[in-house]
């Protein structure tokens, strides 16, 4: 089993390396020169020469890639083109904010989704099941910012329960943080709970058709016990898989939600710098997002293997 995990880890690292090549190559696909693409209309011969020197564009791309990678491993992502500061200085606090928000959302979304899904399986066919089916189909279809602005309009503005601008700084104490980020957290939770809940319900219901479940019913066990103790552990594999995949999707959702609530996180930073053509910053942010995405996909893979004893010890 450890061999399997080791293999998956190695594959993940390889994918991360390939993704870093993609990210770096993504900025080299230009028909023209990187410097003129960055400066666009404000290009003068002096500006161009300065940017070329700053990014070292006279050296071949492969050399620059290896240098960039070497720097990344040491924690040096280069200098931002917008304000000449070290990328890592601006990145670190934003990253902490984003991780906090994502963790806050994940900690609430995952148990909530599993419990709601199990309840839907226990009370299958009832009012709760059918109404939550329609409700989740709708939350899956709508864009995240629609939910976000709904929340702002009705909970923040009309009811005034929570602030609509999530303004946190490095000094905000934990309790205040939890209060200020409640609405963005709720937005993220609504985005991912639907999918996880539907799949939990579907997996459990698929197991309920098995013969041993019929045996449990004939033995007279209460429905909730059958679902929770007998069906659910066997439904874990696809559930873990979809949880990890949804957490990976959370990364994309975080970017949008941060913008809706103007939360000072990695998402708002990246979006801001894309329009300013700040390539080193965008590369660094992209790499972090890609790494998290790959890591979560890897966990989904490993989780699916570990929750199925037949796969744990392949013969």
């Amino acid at each position, binding site marked *: 089993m450890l061999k399997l995990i080791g293999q998956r880890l190695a594959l993940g690292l390889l994918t991360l390396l390939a993704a870093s090549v993609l990210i770096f190559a*993504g900025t080299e696909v*230009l028909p023209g020169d990187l410097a003129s*693409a960055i400066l666009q209309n404000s290009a003068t011969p002096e500006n161009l020469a300065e940017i070329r020197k700053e990014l070292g564009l006279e050296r071949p791309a492969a050399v620059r890639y290896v240098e960039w990678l070497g720097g990344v491993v040491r924690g040096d992502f280069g200098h931002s083109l917008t304000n000449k500061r070290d990328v890592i200085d601006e990145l670190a606090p934003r990253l902490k904010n984003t991780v906090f928000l994502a963790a806050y959302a994940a900690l609430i979304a995952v148990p909530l989704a599993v419990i709601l899904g199990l309840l839907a399986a226990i009370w299958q066919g009832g009012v709760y099941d059918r109404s939550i089916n329609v409700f989740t*189909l709708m939350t899956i*279809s709508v864009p995240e910012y629609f939910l976000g*602005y709904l929340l702002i309009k009705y909970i923040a503005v009309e009811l005034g329960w929570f602030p609509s601008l999530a303004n946190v700084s490095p000094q905000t104490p934990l309790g205040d943080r939890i209060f200020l980020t409640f609405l963005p957290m709720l937005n993220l939770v609504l985005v991912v709970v639907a999918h996880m809940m539907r799949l939990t319900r579907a997996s459990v219901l698929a197991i309920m058709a098995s013969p041993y479940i019929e045996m449990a019913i004939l033995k007279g066990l209460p429905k909730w016990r059958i679902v929770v103790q007998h069906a659910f552990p066997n439904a874990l594999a696809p559930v873990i898989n979809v949880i990890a995949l949804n957490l990976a999707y959370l990364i994309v959702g975080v970017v949008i939600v941060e913008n809706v609530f103007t939360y000072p996180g990695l998402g708002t930073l990246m979006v801001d710098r*894309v329009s300013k053509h700040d390539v080193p910053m*965008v590369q660094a942010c992209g790499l972090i997002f890609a790494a998290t*995405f790959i890591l979560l996909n890897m966990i989904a893979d490993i989780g699916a293997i570990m929750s199925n004893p037949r796969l744990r010890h392949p013969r």
Partner: protein
Amino acid sequence: MRLFGHKMSILAQIGLLIVVVNIALAILAPVIAPYPEADLVGDAWADPSPQFWFGLDQIGRDIFSRMLYGARMSIGLSLVITCLSFTIGIIAGFSAAVLGRWVDVALSRIVDLLLSMPTLIFAFIILSVLGTELPVLIVTIAVLDSTKVFRLSRAVAMNIVVLEFVEAAKLRGEGLWWIIRREILPNAVPPLVAEFGLRFCFTFLFIAALSFLGLGIQPPFADWGSMVKDLAQVINYGSPAALYPAGAIALLTIGVNFIVDWLLAVYSKGHGEGA
């Protein structure tokens, strides 16, 4: 009501109604819009009135007219991108299935690589360098989306390629293009149609999200995503204006999802007597 020979459920009929109305409004926008999309027709942030049904936006343009033109832009652009990504994905997927080993392995590895990164992030990286003009947007999103179409079309084609009539066609000496067009494509239509709906939804939401972040369709073109961003400035003062374009986006995606749900349910039902 029957479509493709199958009875449509209530939800699917609602979905069809929503989609048809949206497409009609998008096509007829220049005819029914009371005002042109970029004209300043009054004070900024005017309230809804019989003259301006949804009120005016942040610089005085009529929101209702912009929503009609926005439908045109968003839906039209998403359709173009989905068609392009479908063309690329289907050709690549079918080729991988028909041509076998090397082509299949090479294409699959490339696709796996592109899929290893979240699409939004990768799009950011490309857009940060190439800018956000329409052709760049179209090609970038089409290429990124074609990876998912590739996966599905390859899987579907693999199932068809092993059937006898394809083998017979190969032995007859038919070319690749002929096999794709005459043997595989007609048999692959049902899952591909459902996938088209899903991809359209995804592209539509993606364009709207990019525009919402300011990186998609640029002013003065109206687009629902950027309208949400503009109109959200006054949401803290109680104006629900941002919910109109956002709600329109939500409504269209829900409608398409209802239809796709029904299509998938119909397709996965057996064709035998017991179905």
